[in-house]
């Protein structure tokens, strides 16, 4: 019996060592290929990393489903939101003529765009589903400029890994990796269902990331920062969402 126990102990020890070093190697590889999310720490880091890594491997180039015009939700839906701040109200009073989208960070030509400048680029539209983590959803037509078009204009530097984006509401900011930032359906949306984007839906300018849950589509966007690491932003977890208890990656 002691023989078996000793053999089991040795085999178990070897298996544990192999397992731990296997995990360490897997973690290094995952880090190298950008498969580890910024909020990978803590007790839920395992699940978050598995979800992000597997979805990145499966969905890097996949397109969110698009719908027909007849499937657009009627009446259109706008979620409840906190009251708008003074900065917003001032710009709103001026018809958003002074609204700016500032793009900085790891770009060759930091730029501040007016809404008219953004609208001067060829506009694109998509009819996609917006699903909230709570469980409700709606379909709308989103009109805007692909984020990749704006990033092309400013010249993203090769070491870039994330694009952080900020709402005029300072509590609300988020980020996506370059796979999502350069994805053809990731929009800076300024129109909805053939009209200007309503205030309730994030007008005058909203991020739309249709392969993610709704909270990733930040409203009232005023700034983009291109970066190689999310460490310097807030608590370094990638966005405001994990600071409020929600996961950074919202593809699920």
């Amino acid at each position: 019996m002691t023989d078996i126990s000793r053999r089991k102990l040795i085999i178990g020890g070897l298996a544990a060592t192999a397992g731990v070093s296997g995990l360490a190697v897997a973690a290094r590889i995952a880090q190298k290929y950008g498969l580890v999310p910024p909020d990978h720490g803590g007790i839920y880091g395992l699940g978050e990393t598995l979800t992000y890594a597997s979805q990145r491997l499966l969905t890097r180039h996949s397109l969110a489903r698009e719908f027909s015009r007849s499937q657009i939700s009627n009446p259109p839906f706008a979620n409840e939101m906190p009251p708008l701040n003074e900065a917003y109200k001032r710009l709103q009073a001026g018809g958003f003529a002074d609204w700016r989208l500032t793009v900085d960070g790891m770009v060759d030509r930091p730029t501040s765009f007016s809404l008219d400048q953004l609208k001067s680029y060829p506009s694109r539209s998509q009819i996609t589903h917006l699903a909230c983590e709570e469980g409700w959803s709606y379909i709308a037509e989103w009109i805007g400029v692909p984020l990749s078009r704006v990033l092309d204009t400013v010249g993203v530097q090769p070491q870039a890994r994330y694009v952080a984006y900020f709402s005029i509401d300072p509590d609300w900011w988020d980020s996506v990796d370059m796979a999502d930032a350069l994805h053809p359906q990731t929009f800076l949306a300024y129109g909805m269902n053939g009209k200007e984007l309503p205030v309730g839906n994030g007008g005058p300018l909203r991020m739309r990331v249709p392969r993610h849950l709704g909270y990733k589509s930040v409203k009232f966007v005023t700034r983009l920062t291109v970066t190689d690491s999310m460490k310097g932003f807030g608590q370094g977890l990638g966005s405001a969402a994990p600071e409020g208890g929600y996961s950074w990656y919202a593809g699920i």
Partner: protein
Amino acid sequence: MARLESVPVALGESVASSAPAVPAAKVTPRHSGLVRVTHWVTTLCFFALLISGIEIVISHPRFYWGETGNVLTKPLFQLHIPSSRSKVQTGYGYVLPDQNGWSRYLHFQAAWIVVLTGLLYVISFLFTGHLRKDLLPGKGDLSWRAFSSSIAKHLRFERPSAEEAWSYNVIQRLSYLFVIFVLFPLVIWTGLAMSPGFVSAFPATVTAFGGQQSARTIHFFVTLALVLFLVAHVVMICVAGFRSRMRAMITGRADGTHRERT
């Protein structure tokens, strides 16, 4: 303990006949180590998924059919419980605190663990014969007479015979098979159908159900079915003898009468 744990692999494989699995030696465990570990990991994950799932439902206790649904849409049905969001009109004068953040983290963490555990369990069928020996009903079991007598025994909450401490009866086998091969796959599938990232790569996952909201509604009903199974499972364990059945699933040891007999 060392003795009990060291033998199952060797002896488990020697019991190859499909005869009632009366132990060949007194050290054969009632349930293999793999079955015991995967059983309890699944139990833990199921409770984590259930509690976090209830928390997530509370934020929007309305269910729809088709692609979309929100408070402006007529629901298929609504749970008459308070909500953690003020926009949902529940008839209650208060709003519950938002618990979705940790609930979602926990839900997907537990989902990963239970899916990997389930895969390990199902893959082990190839090597252990657990499916054929313990889960698939024997030929004689599928006769109408055997089936109706088993149902009658269940309806009378009759304490099972001593042999059943070492083998599942036909109703038990069929319900376990249903849970393993129908309910679990369906709850995973409908869960994936709600993931905007996953369905972008595999749209048929959601179109098969007619939309994301349909998948959410089915996810809810499959969960109800799993909870019903859990209740029946626990009731039957109490009928059969809570202490002996728990001991068999925790330590692997079954009733003393059998160990004496062998």
